[in-house]
Structure formats: C-alpha cells, structure tokens
C-alpha cells in the first residue's frame, strides 16, 4: 500500500516500487515530479485513459496546466479515494469525513479552491469536481447579490438595459 499523504508522495523516489502496484509519475508545470500509485492516478479519467491506451507510463505524465501546490492537494484527494477501500460503513464514513475536512480547508482560500476546481476539471476527477463546485454553490446559497460580489470579488457591471430587463421580469413576476 502506498502512503496516504500525497504531499509526501516520495517525489524523488521514483524507484521505490511496492509489490503489486505500479507507480506513476505526474509532473507539474513547474517540473516537479510526484510519484503516486496507479490506483490513485486512476481517479483521474484523463490519466486513466492515457494509462489504458498504453501511454508513456514509464516516462510519466506532464501536466502543463497544473502547478505544484495544486497538484499536491489534488493528489492528496486521489490517494485517499484511490488507495483506500470503501466497502464497509466505517470505511465510507471515514472517506466522507476526509472529504468534509478537505473541502473545509480549501474553502478558506478561494483562489486556491478555484485552482483545485480547474485542475479537477482538467484531469476529470469527477468526485473532486463535484465536491469543489458544490462548495462554491453552497457559498452562493442564501446570500444577497452584494454578499456574493464580496465573497467572490466580482464587480458590478450590469447595464441600464440589463437592469430594465431584470425589473421587467421581477414586476411581471
């Protein structure tokens, strides 16, 4: 079994192979290599299809759209979901708790949350993408437009015509 912590995923030790599980190297856009188990890497549909197509498993996969900080965090998620079993109630509860803590930590830093969301989208990691986008949607829920603007740093750019249309919809309504 590979180590649970992705950040510490023995970046330098590409040779360190454990019996029964292939190791795969992912390289961030800064050129930093991360070695992960195949089970962990397969959480990404993008990498999964490349592996299955007999792609360059030995050479590793360069990920030009993902920086090291983001990749480390994404791998943390993939390790947890790829390397651990989810058969019993307890195992599933442990994973749910991991997800909850994982997203709570990300939510504190919106810019980083966006980076992880874009990486999840690019790598097609369905579970992670659903987790981060739901978190962003939850932030919007129950807020006034002004609060949403503040929360996401959005500027007000509606034109008089837009306003007229909204007003139209609302009063029609």
């Amino acid at each position: 079994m590979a180590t649970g912590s992705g950040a510490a995923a023995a970046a330098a030790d590409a040779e360190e192979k454990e019996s029964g599980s292939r190791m795969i190297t992912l390289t961030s856009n800064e050129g930093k290599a991360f070695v992960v188990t195949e089970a962990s890497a397969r959480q990404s549909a993008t990498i999964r299809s490349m592996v299955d197509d007999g792609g360059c498993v030995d050479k590793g996969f360069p990920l030009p759209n993902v920086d090291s900080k983001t990749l480390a965090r994404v791998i943390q998620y993939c390790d947890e979901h790829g390397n651990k079993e989810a058969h019993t109630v307890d195992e599933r509860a442990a994973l749910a708790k991991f997800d909850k803590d994982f997203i709570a930590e990300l939510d504190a830093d919106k810019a980083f949350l966006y980076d992880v969301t874009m990486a999840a989208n690019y790598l097609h990691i369905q579970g992670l993408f659903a987790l981060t986008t739901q978190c962003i949607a939850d932030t919007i829920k129950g807020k006034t437009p002004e609060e949403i603007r503040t929360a996401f740093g959005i500027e007000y750019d509606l034109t008089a015509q837009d306003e007229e249309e909204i007003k139209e919809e609302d009063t029609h309504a």
Partner: protein
Amino acid sequence: MPPTSPLDPIYHRTRGLHELNRLMSLRREQRRLQIETYQFLAQCAKRKESPCQQDNSQCVKRMRYSGPDLPEDIWHHIHSLLPLQDAARAACVSQAFLRFWRCHPNLIFSWKTMGLNKVPHKKGGIVRDYNNKVDGIMKNHSGELTLVLTSNEEKYNFPCSLLSNGSGDSIQSLRLVHCSFCPTVGLVSLRSLTRLHLSCVCIINTDIEYLLSDALALERLEIKRCGEINCLAIPCLLQRLSFLGVFGCFGLQMLESKAPNLCSFHFEGKQVQFSLEEPVRSKNLEVVFPNSVCYARVELPFSMPDIETLNVISSCEMVDTPTGPGKFLHLRYLRITFPTWRFSRAYYFSLSSFLDASPFLETFILCISQKEKHGLTFKEPICLRQIPEHRHDKLKNVKITGFSAIRSLVELTCHIMENTTSLECLTLDTLCTQLRCSDGNIDVCLPLDQDVIKGVHNSLLAIRTYIEGKIPSTVKFNVREPCSRCHGW
C-alpha cells in the same frame, strides 16, 4: 422594510424593486470600485502568469470579464447546482451571472419559490399570477431547459417563441413537466435535440407527431402521463433514437416504432396499448403491466425477435405462463419481478416455460416481493415433474430474491438444477429487499417483522431439505440471510 407581509405576493415584488433601487444607487460607488477591481485582477493575472500561451489567453479573458475567477463553463455548472430562488437572486450580481440565470437549466417553479401562497378562495387569481410570473422569466430564457411547473387547473402554455427563429436549434435537452405544449408547425425547430422528456404535458397527437418528425437528432424520448396522446408513432426518420420510454399514458391505444436503432424500450401502462404492429428491432425491453409475463412469453418471440435483455414486471398474472411455439433465440438476460403477491401458489413452476423457450439464456433473475403464508410442511417429498428435452447448456447465473418455502418455487429451483449443465452460480436470497447495509446501498438495514423472520427460517429449512443436496460441487451456491449486524442473525 415594505409594510406588507412576506406571504403577500406584493411583498416579493416590492422587495425585488427595492433590491434593484439599492443596486442602482450603488452603481456610482461600484464604478469607483471598478478601478480598484481592475487593479486587483491585474495583480491576479500577474500572479498566474506563465509561459504557456493558453494560460495567458485565459488571463486576458479573466481581465476582460473582470468577473469570477473560473472559466464560464464551470460557473454554468455551479449555477446549475443552485436552487431556483438562489439562482434568480444571483442574477443581479453581474452580467456574467445574469447570463447564467438566462440559461439556468433547471427551472422548477413551485408555489413557494414563486412567492405565492395558494389560498383556495382566490385560486383562479393565484393561478394566473403564477402563470404570469413563469411567463416573465421564460421570455428571456435560452439554452438547455428543464421546466417543472406545479400541477394546477390552468396549465401554463409553454411559449413556443423560445424555440422558434432558430433558437430551438441549439437546445440539446428539453424536459417539461405540468404544462401544455403546442409546437407551431414551421416555427418550432429542435434540430440538435437529443433528449426529450414530457411529463404530465398536454400535447395532442398531431403536435407530438410534428415534433418528432423534426427532431432528427433525438436519442432519448420519455413520455410520462400525457393523457391526451392516444396514438404514438415513432417515425423511421429518427435514426439515432436508442431509448424510448412510455409510462402511464392511459389514453394511448396504439404504439408503433419504426426507429431503426432503438435498443431500449420501456413501457408501463395497460396491456391493451402495447400492441406492436410491426416487429420492433429493439434488443432491450422493459415492460410493466398486468399479465406481462404471459404476454411476453406468447407475443415477444414474434414482435421482438432480436431481444437480448428482457425485464418483465407484473403486478398480477391471471393464468400460468403458457408453453408455446415461439423461441427467444437471442435472449441472454431475463429478469422477472413480481412486486405484489397475487399468484396462485402453484404459479412459479410455470415460469420454466420461459426458460425452456430461451436456449441461449445466460442469466435468470426472479424477484418475488412478498412473504409466503402457507409453505411446505417438509414432510412430503418433492417429485420433479418430468419435462423431457429441455436441457440448458448456456445458463450460468440464477438468482432468486424473496425465496420462500413454496412448493412450486422449490420445484422451479430443482428443475433448473436438474436440467442445467452450465450453471456456475446459484443465489437464493431469503429476503425480498435488495437493500442491505453490507452492500453499501443503505446505512442500516430495514427492520423485519416476526412473520418475515419466521418465513426466513422456513425458507432456510426448505433450502437445506430439498435444494442443497442437488447442487454439484462446481456450482457456487450463495444463500443470503438477514444481516448479522442489524438483525443479529
């Protein structure tokens, strides 16, 4: 605060206006902030700068939209996760958010989300108010659409103008619930539509006929409880149609499909409606109506000769499954479900006629949903009824859920054991529920009453007495009992 009560529709209107006025007064302040925002975004862009061309262009785009720091398609997805009220409120955030709202794919209008309180004595007025509100929102809508309305006396008339002048041609998915829909010939065009779902929609024969003749990209069609339709003909023009589901359309008298690539066909209703004029080249069929087992055994070998997967759900069978001339020469998977218990105790053995007519069957699943009342006494021996020349040499998996100590069921199981040379796995589940915590589909198993527990003991005794001894060592034999964790079994 407006002086009206939150339950009054006026309150919501005034609130909307109030919100808007506040926004307008904020605009000057916002203009000032705009400059600061640009500076901030420029910084962001700098932070994210990379030699990669793609990244650079993204930064430029971010600056131009000066909005949310994610690509628009991801924001669209996030927006689609919002409940209607939140999505509508967020429209006032910015131009980008207004665009998301215009294409919000899930318009589910309940009385509550529309700020209406249904008061019986003014129902007519409220219904009109509701329909007007929906109309106000629909007029500016575009793109993919799920429109779910509340059932009411005056059905909202779906504005076909949304689908005319080419704007319908970009829509891929349309789901309408509780409204009336009269697509005007020559105006409405849905050339990209791949999924159409109509549920409780007032639409007449000629309109659905017109709609289907135009939607040439259609892959999936579901029609539920549309009572006005009495004749449904799927034209052969629908080359891509692979899934057809017709559920509870009780006015239907004739159903015909000429779609050449239909591979999945689901039908729920009355048997009389299910008369297929010509053979349907579908490979998967699910039928739900009374006596469907008998119907399937007699008719389908002729009306669906290519069938590979058959799922039959029947609430009652008036007669035993007949033996007959037809054979299922392609059937590999058969699942029969009885959600109620209206069968004579001698019924089950007659299902062997189905197996005997399916020489290439690989998987047979039988789901029985009720407990047995008068089981075997375990004193009498089970003498197999001898049916010659019915050897199964393809059948590999047999599963019976809700297995109980009923003679004809034990006989059916023994018949399969005696006549199948290829069997690899036999599973007998003593409970009718498929839900067990150990399978991960629920957290805690459902409680069992005393009768069920007694029935399980009888079933286990029947399995030990009559079946266990007949199972060759090459067959994997599973007996599923109640959960040990939840029921202390």
